[in-house]
């Protein structure tokens, strides 16, 4: 089936070309990091994780796109999702690959990567996160590829795929839970030390994943002969709406606990994010943008007419996606380090090479996504 990726319209090739340029730029920036070390980033002794780990955290959520179409289709037999399970699975492949790359570029000694497997350490959550993320990547590759191949041949997928499909559903829950546990179990990081961290991860994943899938489905419909189907999009919209409401509610819960209890350690990170702390407010504009986007998304989605109107729905999905991006991919990680353990504020802002590397990885993810979607759509067009 791979050969379908090699042929295509000029638009397809141009898109791949543009992505390749960004990948090249990112790779060049990574070479400077390889030669000079993480000194080229904005990271510091006090904010030791930044853009890379934040992107990783957000993208784990995007990988949830798969389970949100697989679960209703295979467990509840909702036929409408049958057509787009492949789009969800392939999006998960791209997202998991980006996650792995973001962890890799964040490492100070990437050539020692295999130490994680040579000295397996079950008490480290990072060890488990490597396992669940790679596992989810492999599951989606096996499932997506085999189901699509069967569709092309007009047969039923092999029986051994079925247990993998069922396994992939709880596995999807595990990637969010384990990633949340990376942060939620650290003493002294008040902003992360919250029991609803895993629940927040699941809720935001189940809205940002479907939001991106809705936007991608629209593009697929517009630029190919394959129509993902209105019913599937409607159902995804319902899932996204509920998850978004729960996400916003969860953020509100954090505010209540922090400010009603009035414990300084609980309040400080939230203050830093939304009004600034000790005269430092790098992230304040981003977090207000998050608030505006989140509220706009909720207001739009609560209106049934918006959900039925394609253009308005896209706007709402974009609000959801970008608000969750800011919450996870900008605020959550950095604010965990502010104030530092000595109650001082040392701010972080990513450097240009750091941003280029991040863009390069996003481009890599979208390159993989484009190629996989091209294959899937070609097969769908042939079969139809």
């Amino acid at each position: 089936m791979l050969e379908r990726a090699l042929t295509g319209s000029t638009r397809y090739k141009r898109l791949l070309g543009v992505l390749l340029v960004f990948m090249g730029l990112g790779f060049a920036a990574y070479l400077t990091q390889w030669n000079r070390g993480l000194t080229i980033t904005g990271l510091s002794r006090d904010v030791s994780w930044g853009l890379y780990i934040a992107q990783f955290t957000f993208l784990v959520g995007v990988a949830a796109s798969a389970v949100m179409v697989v679960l209703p289709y295979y467990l509840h037999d909702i036929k409408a999702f049958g057509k787009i399970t492949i789009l969800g699975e392939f999006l998960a492949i791209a997202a998991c690959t980006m996650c792995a790359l973001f962890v890799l570029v964040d490492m100070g000694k990437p050539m020692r990567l295999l130490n994680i497997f040579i000295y397996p350490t079950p008490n480290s959550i990072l060890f488990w996160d490597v396992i669940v993320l790679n596992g989810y990547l492999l599951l989606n590759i096996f499932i997506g590829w085999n189901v699509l191949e069967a569709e092309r041949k007009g047969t039923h997928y092999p029986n051994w795929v079925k247990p993998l499909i069922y396994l992939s559903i709880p596995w999807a829950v595990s990637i969010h839970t384990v990633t949340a546990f990376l942060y939620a179990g650290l003493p002294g990081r008040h902003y992360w030390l919250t029991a609803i961290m895993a629940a927040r991860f699941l809720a935001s994943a189940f809205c940002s994943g479907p939001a991106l899938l809705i936007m991608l489905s629209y593009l697929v419909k517009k630029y190919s002969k394959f129509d993902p189907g209105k019913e599937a999009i409607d159902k995804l919209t319902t899932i996204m709406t509920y998850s978004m409401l729960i996400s916003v509610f969860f953020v509100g819960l954090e505010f209540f606990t922090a400010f009603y209890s009035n414990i300084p350690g609980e309040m400080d990170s939230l203050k830093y994010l939304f009004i600034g702390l000790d005269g430092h407010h790098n992230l304040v504009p981003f977090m207000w943008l998050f608030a505006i986007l989140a509220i706009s998304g909720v207001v739009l989605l609560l209106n049934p007419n918006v959900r039925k109107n394609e253009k308005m729905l896209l706007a709402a999905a974009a609000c959801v996606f970008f608000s969750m991006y800011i919450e996870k991919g900008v605020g959550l990680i950095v604010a965990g380090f502010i104030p530092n353990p000595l109650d001082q504020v040392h701010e972080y802002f990513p450097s240009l090479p750091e941003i280029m590397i991040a863009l390069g990885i996003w481009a890599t993810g979208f390159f993989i996504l484009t190629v996989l979607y091209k294959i899937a759509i070609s097969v769908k067009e042939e079969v139809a």
Partner: protein
Amino acid sequence: METGRRNFLKIGGLCTLGLGSLRLVDAIAKTEEPKFLLNVQALSAKRWAMAIDMKKCWEKGRPGCTDCTLACHSTHNVPDIGTQKEEIKWIWEEKYENVFPRQESGMEPEAIREKPFILLCNHCTNAPCTRVCPTKATFKRPDGITMMDFHRCIGCRYCMAACPYGARSFNFRDPRPFIKTELNTTFPTRERGVVEKCNFCEERLAAGKIPACVEACKCKALCFGDLEDPKSDVRKALASQFSIRRKPELGTEPGVYYVI
């Protein structure tokens, strides 16, 4: 190169024999002697700990004294990067409000508020850093020291996120050009991309010497010893004076005590 089945089997057989003989060598060369001999002078303890008497430091020490920091950083080839962002430090000074945040009364004597406190790795009994390390590059020794293996560390910096005391530093760049003290060739310098911190001078303990900072302090403000031994200096110092530890509510059980 052409080769027949016969040749292939011959070479294969020889290879297997060769590899197998390694085990034979191991078996014959086996001795009762242990591979490493412990220095008979080595200092040992059930639980190494430190008591820092800040009053002694302030009253007897000269103002601005940094003897302990200098001794430690030159002993361990700690680089002076020169920026706050990438600073590497094993033992350093901070103010009371930063060392004991949320423990201020707000009405402390000015001396307490303004004078420097000494900070270093707490060598916690329940160290969060060793709990999170994905490669066991940082680990607990049976004698309570939280150790760091610079050659195994992958530089993920999870330990830095986990440490509630800010005791860990990361080598963002090659540290070697920034070693401004005389190079100590008996202690490894670090590479770019690994985490480092105080090691309670385990290399000196193994050679029968007390930690460099303790030795360097002329006013004897730093007191080092076995917490499990009631006759040790540390136990005596702690038994006779009131002491506190940093962030006791986190349950990490620090091994560094402060007498104020």
